[in-house]
């Protein structure tokens, strides 16, 4: 199953290495990672999408991450109300004859053209990973030359539904 894990970490040398090393050591599969600064200086935020076999493994990941000294907070937000976004750049073959068709096709996705050359276009799309996926699939018949995806970044919405099953790190 797919889990989305976010965490805040001390922005120290090697911290990303610590985290990915832990994933390797314990045989956890990472689908994507995003890292960036937060509103607090010296603290970074990471979002992981991982594929795990079961609940127990998911719980182990959280606990192992929590043991890292430089990890301040870990949350499995998969089952919460969240905002999850990804950005993708898609270079697609686009001879003049099909350009208009592509423009129409990407419009409902609120994607934009960020580069145009003689026989290709670069399309930028932002949204939930499923939406990005869907657009890529629609563009595939035209001939995709290159795709660059950022991976998912996410956090919880301001208001949570009362029923949400909040996952915490410790079973104290």
């Amino acid at each position, binding site marked *: 199953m797919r889990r989305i894990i976010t965490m805040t*970490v*001390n922005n120290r*040398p*090697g911290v990303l*290495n*610590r985290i990915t*090393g*832990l994933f390797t*050591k314990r045989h956890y599969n990472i689908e994507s990672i995003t890292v960036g600064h937060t509103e607090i200086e010296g603290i970074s935020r990471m979002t992981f999408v991982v594929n795990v076999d079961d609940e*127990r493994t998911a*719980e*182990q990941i959280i*606990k*192992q991450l*929590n*043991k*890292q*000294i*430089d*990890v*301040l907070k870990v949350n499995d937000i998969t089952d919460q109300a969240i905002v999850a976004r990804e950005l993708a750049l898609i270079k697609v073959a686009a001879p003049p004859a099909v350009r208009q068709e592509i423009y129409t096709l990407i419009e409902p996705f609120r994607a934009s053209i960020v580069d145009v050359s003689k026989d290709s276009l670069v399309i930028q799309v932002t949204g939930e990973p499923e939406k990005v996926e869907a657009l890529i699939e629609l563009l595939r018949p035209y001939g995709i030359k290159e795709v660059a995806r950022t991976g998912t970044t996410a956090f919880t919405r301001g208001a949570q539904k009362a029923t949400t099953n909040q996952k915490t*790190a*410790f*079973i*104290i």
Partner: protein
Amino acid sequence: MAKMKVEEQEKAKTKARMSGSLMLIEALKAEKVEVIFGYPGGAVLPLYDELYKAGVFHVLTRHEQGAIHAAEGYARISGKPGVVIATSGPGATNIVTGLTDAMMDSLPLVVFTGQVATSVIGSDAFQEADVVGITMPITKHNYQVRDISELPRIIKEAFHIATTGRPGPVLIDIPKDITTAEGEFDYDQDVHLPGYQPTTQPNHWQIRRLVEAVSQSKRPVILAGAGILHANASNELRQYAEQQNIPVIHTLLGLGGFPADHPLFLGMAGMHGTYTANMALCECDLLINIGARFDDRVTGNLKYFAPKATVAHIDIDPAEIGKNVPTKIPIVSDAKAALQELIAQQGKPADTAAWLAQLDEWKRRFPLHYEPEAGTIKPQKLIEMIYEMTNGEAIVTTDVGQHQMWAAQYYKFNRPHRWVTSGGLGTMGFGLPAAIGAQLADRSATVVSIVGDGGFQMTFQELSVIQELRLPIKIVIVNNQALGMVRQWQELFYDKRYSHSLIPNQPDFVKLAEAYGMPGLRAKTEAEAAEVLKQAFAMDGPVLLDFHVRADENVYPMVAPGKGLHEMVGVKACEESSR
């Protein structure tokens, strides 16, 4: 007024400017470090210069691996962090095994490694190695000092992290220029680690659930690991077991936490555990794990592990709870704190009379067993003789292999902190250097280092240190002319194809001892062994004893890999008349 002055003076002193090397020395003094195990080299020369001037007690082992295993032995016996210094590159890579060993067995170490100067890091400079990268997965935490101003804080954090929560090794990599740079030494600061807040007190609700579970159970059992020893909770364990009438089983590393001669003790569990301990795990209806991590050598095949039991697990590391065995009652806590709380609850004891009668019956019918044999030395008998010779009071260190298991089975530990062995990693070469650290942690103790003829040769260069410091360690080589444990597996699982496990031409260990300036004695029969032991324990200094035992002896009982604990082989029913 006068008090103010003293405080200001103190402040001024702790804020003095000094070199990184001197800071390190001052920090070690502040941490009351009694002994450093180390080995010099280019990157740590400034540091060794300060050590020379400061007259700090430093043990020069003959290999960095010896230094770190000695530090582990010291930590195991003293409960204090073992301190190690190694130079950059090969010095640092030589301690990798020891770090992993300490990580697996939760031993507190603070390890300093030299590093090339910051200006050349990343250029593949002479004796440069990415030590922080290499040791990241095998340390509880590690650091590379990038600026002199960070050094005091980092050392302080390192000692804090190594010794609190679940203990473990912490490494500090110090570039050479940092050791000579000057900075302000402020060691009077608080440790501020928001990402590291170990839970040490139990949750009351979970404690009450456990009390309730105990009162309802008919066949409870405690599985106690080294967490008992780290928490100094032996007395509490005994009180609790007696209060509630619950029998106790130890893991390999927990031995000594509960008295071996106590009627409630069932022995060691696992691959070479006692019949009664393993069967108790199979039959119990409530399993209370205190400070053990359900290692596969303890549980056997998880599919068959404690199938009838409700599992409660007390551990200071939340990640261990539920990792291998689904756990109904999780208690994240220091073992001592949890046991005190449990004792204080004075819960209704379980009605264990029938259960204890059953266990006693098993103990009587299926004790540890070996066939005595005239004209040779039975390794099991040898351990029993050593036990008697030392009144069960010795500190015993072992290497890894058959002799280790025999020592665990036949040396009955009644006191905590007397047993030093490499459990999780199973590191050959551990036993001899660990004895050095153990003896330095307790100078008045009798230390016996029981090693195999194979593993001894991985670190025997440390005989030099034993001789130099006149440490009165009794070194016992259980010489079966084989990598015995490997040979046993090949006999049992590979149709006796002894691929590279027989070493019939071992060197003359007695002469080797003499070459290092210590007496060596040899025995080939039980009578000789008795004589040799008497001589050895009458000597004041170190002595090496080479006991030739049968090569084809196996360790039993045994749970073969992949099998459940109920599938022990080599169990013999013992009728009234026999031993």
